[in-house]
């Protein structure tokens, strides 16, 4: 299987404190991973670095076989990598506009955006929320809107930061039910999580961030 992303010596410091110094790791194309580790190990930070929201030092980086520099964040990765927050925030427009946001940003024609948003709402089971005020959605509904907002972009690498944290019961089940189709969509996924049901999903490989380095499990 070919590597989608390979990084050598990835270091992150906050002032004098070094969060991690990872000798190197690679993510395969069309592969799902869970990223585990104790709280404070740097799971979120690592995802944010991969998503271009946090600066870090890397001695080498290749994405889809192309050698790139991590800082400034490469344009090729910006178009292909989507990061979803643990607590996704909704723009105060409409649910449909939220889901179509990235497509509109990419200049996709409005008619096509409307079609794709409709399909994504059906997929996420949120079609009935079409006219809802995004601020009024529950945590689980926001997470599903956020997954739909990311899915429509068909990212080559989708980074999910604790997608089921702070969700329980039906809301958690509904989010977990969406993950296998995301895994089967052809891109790679990295999910930072503690959720055993996500860790146990078929075909998912495990990365563990421990003592500032990554272990493949």
């Amino acid at each position, binding site marked *: 299987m070919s590597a989608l992303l390979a990084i050598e010596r990835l270091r992150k410091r906050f002032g004098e404190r070094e969060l991690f110094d990872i000798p190197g790791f690679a993510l395969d194309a069309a592969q799902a991973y869970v990223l585990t580790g104790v709280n404070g190990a740097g799971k979120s930070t690592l995802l944010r670095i991969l998503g271009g*929201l946090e600066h870090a030092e890397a001695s080498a980086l290749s994405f889809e076989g192309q050698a790139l520099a991590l800082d400034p964040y490469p344009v090729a990765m*910006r178009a292909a990598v*989507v990061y979803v927050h643990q607590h996704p*925030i909704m*723009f105060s427009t409409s649910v449909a506009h939220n889901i179509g946001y990235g497509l509109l*940003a990419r200049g996709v024609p409005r008619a096509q955006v409307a079609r794709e948003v409709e399909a994504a709402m059906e997929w996420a089971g949120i079609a009935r929320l079409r006219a809802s005020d995004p*601020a009024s959605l529950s945590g689980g509904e926001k997470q599903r809107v956020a997954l739909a907002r990311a899915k429509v*972009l068909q990212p080559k690498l989708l980074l999910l930061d604790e997608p089921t944290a702070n969700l329980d019961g039906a809301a958690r089940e509904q989010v977990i039910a969406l993950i296998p189709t995301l895994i089967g969509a052809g891109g790679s996924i990295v999910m930072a999580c503690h959720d055993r049901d996500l860790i146990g999903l078929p075909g998912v490989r495990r990365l563990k961030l421990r003592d500032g380095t990554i272990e493949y499990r």
Partner: protein
Amino acid sequence: MPLVDATRDAFGLLLSGDAELWQIVWVSLKTSVFGLLLATPVAVVLGYAIASHRFRGRRIAIWLAQAALSLPTVLIGLLLYLLLSRQGPAGGLHWLFTQSGMIAGQFVIAIPVLMAFTLAAVQAADPRYAETAVAHGASGWRVMTTLLYEVRFGVMAAVISGFGRVISEVGCALMVGGNIAGETRTITTAIALETSKGDFAQGIALGIVLVTIALLMNGALMLLQGDAHSARGRL
């Protein structure tokens, strides 16, 4: 009681549609609104840029923007006077004692207020808005418009406060406008002049108009803030 008599005469002037008085109100509104319309896009973009970018001298820029809030308008008037006077570097514009000069003054006065309020609103915004926009591939321009839309109540408050500052200032309008009847006389400069002449009725009438405008603008602000608070309560 002279105050009671003057107030009664003031209402008489207002209700009789005194042309001179309403001309003064018109000049005030026109120069203030034009100055504000020109200043708003510049100041909002500057405020956003300072709030959302890291660059050398950023803290100094914030310090200067906030310090500029307390610049006396009469000092801005003096500087503009020197710039626009015949021998000044911008004398060729022939803007001294014209409405164009007054609009330039209102522009300069409004910029720091609008900038400081926008800066504060953008700094207070949840960082996930900008991050979500960036993570979904938004261009720098789209990130800005997205974020400004999310802090629109703060930006509206900036505009209303800016309007309050320009409509109520007297120093710059007096120095740059020259208080010419029918041309550059504004509500505030007219109040100063009429009071010095002992004609309190027109001064009070104009004061009533000014207070009414202030009440309306602040009422609008309260309505907007009420809406913002209820929106926050739902999060």
